[in-house]
C-alpha cells in the first residue's frame, strides 16, 4: 500500500504543479491583454508614435498567445479521469515529455527562421552581437528536439528509469528514421542550391537542421500520444 500512497502523493504534487502552471498562463494572458489594450490606447490617443504603440501591442499579443497556450495545456482535468489514466509515475513522466515535444518544434522552426536572417547579416559583414547569438540559438534549438527524443537531455538522463522502456526505443527509431531521411533530402537540396548560390545554401542550413529536428520531435510526440489512445 505504501507504493499506492506514494503514487497518490505524487499525483497530488503533479496536480499542484499543473495548477501553478495554469495560473501562470492566466497571469501571462492578463498581462498580454493589458499590454494590447495599452498599445491600442497609446495609438488612438497619439500618446506615442505608431511604431512604439505597435511594438507594445505586438508584445502584448505574444504574451496573450503564450498565456492562452499555457492555460489550455494545463487546463484542469477530472481527477478521477487523471487517476485512471495515470498508471504510475512512468506514464506521467512520459506524458510530460510528449507534451513538451509537441510544443518545442514550433519554437525550433521559429528560431531556425530567425537564424537564416542572422546568418545573412554575418555573411554581409553587418552582424552585431545579437545576430551571432541568434545563429548560435538557432543551431542550439535545432538540436534540442532530437536530444530529448534520443533521451540525451539532462532530464531524460536523470529519469532514465521512468522515461526509457521498450516502446520508447521503438518510437525513437520510428521518429528519427524519417527525420534523418528528411535531413538528407534537405541537405541534398542545399548542396544543389550551393552550386548556384553558395551563400544562400549556408544561410538556409540552420533552418534545414531545425526543420529536421522538429520533424523528429513532432513524430515522436505523435506516436506517444497515439499509443495512449485505447482501442
Amino acid at each position: 500500500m505504501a507504493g499506492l500512497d506514494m503514487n497518490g502523493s505524487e499525483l497530488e504534487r503533479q496536480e499542484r504543479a499543473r495548477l501553478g502552471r495554469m495560473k501562470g498562463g492566466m497571469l501571462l494572458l492578463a498581462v498580454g491583454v493589458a499590454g494590447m489594450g495599452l498599445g491600442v490606447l497609446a495609438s488612438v490617443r497619439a500618446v506615442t508614435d505608431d511604431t512604439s504603440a505597435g511594438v507594445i501591442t505586438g508584445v502584448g499579443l505574444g504574451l496573450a498567445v503564450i498565456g492562452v497556450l499555457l492555460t489550455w495545456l494545463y487546463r484542469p482535468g477530472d481527477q478521477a479521469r487523471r487517476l485512471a489514466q495515470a498508471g504510475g509515475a512512468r506514464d506521467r513522466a512520459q506524458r510530460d515529455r510528449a507534451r513538451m515535444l509537441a510544443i518545442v518544434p514550433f519554437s525550433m522552426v521559429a528560431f531556425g527562421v530567425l537564424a537564416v536572417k542572422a546568418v545573412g547579416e554575418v555573411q554581409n559583414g553587418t552582424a552585431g552581437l545579437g545576430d551571432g547569438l541568434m545563429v548560435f540559438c538557432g543551431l542550439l534549438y535545432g538540436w534540442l528536439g532530437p536530444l530529448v527524443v534520443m533521451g540525451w537531455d539532462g532530464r531524460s538522463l536523470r529519469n532514465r528509469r521512468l522515461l526509457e522502456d521498450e516502446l520508447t526505443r521503438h518510437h525513437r527509431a520510428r521518429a528519427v528514421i524519417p527525420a534523418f531521411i528528411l535531413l538528407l533530402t534537405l541537405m541534398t537540396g542545399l548542396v544543389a542550391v550551393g552550386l548556384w548560390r553558395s551563400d544562400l545554401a549556408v544561410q538556409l542550413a540552420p533552418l534545414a537542421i531545425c526543420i529536421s529536428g522538429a520533424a523528429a520531435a513532432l513524430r515522436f510526440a505523435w506516436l506517444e500520444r497515439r499509443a495512449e489512445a485505447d482501442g
Partner: protein
Amino acid sequence: MGELRLGIRLKDVRTAAGLTQAELAERVGVSRKTVNTVENGVFVPSTPLALGLARALGVKVEDLFWLED
C-alpha cells in the same frame, strides 16, 4: 516461409485476471501505453517483455502469444 504473424490474447487474459492496463504495466515495469499497444497489436513485444507479461499474469507465454497460420 511466409511472414510470421503474431496472435495476441493479452487483453482477455488480463481482464480475466482482474487487472487494469496500468496495474499490469506497473507489475512488469513498463508504461500503460506499452501494454495498450501490445494488446492492440500495434507493437510487437520483445521476448523478455513477452515473458515478463506472462509471468506477471501467472500464465505461460504461449497463452498470450502464438504464431498464426
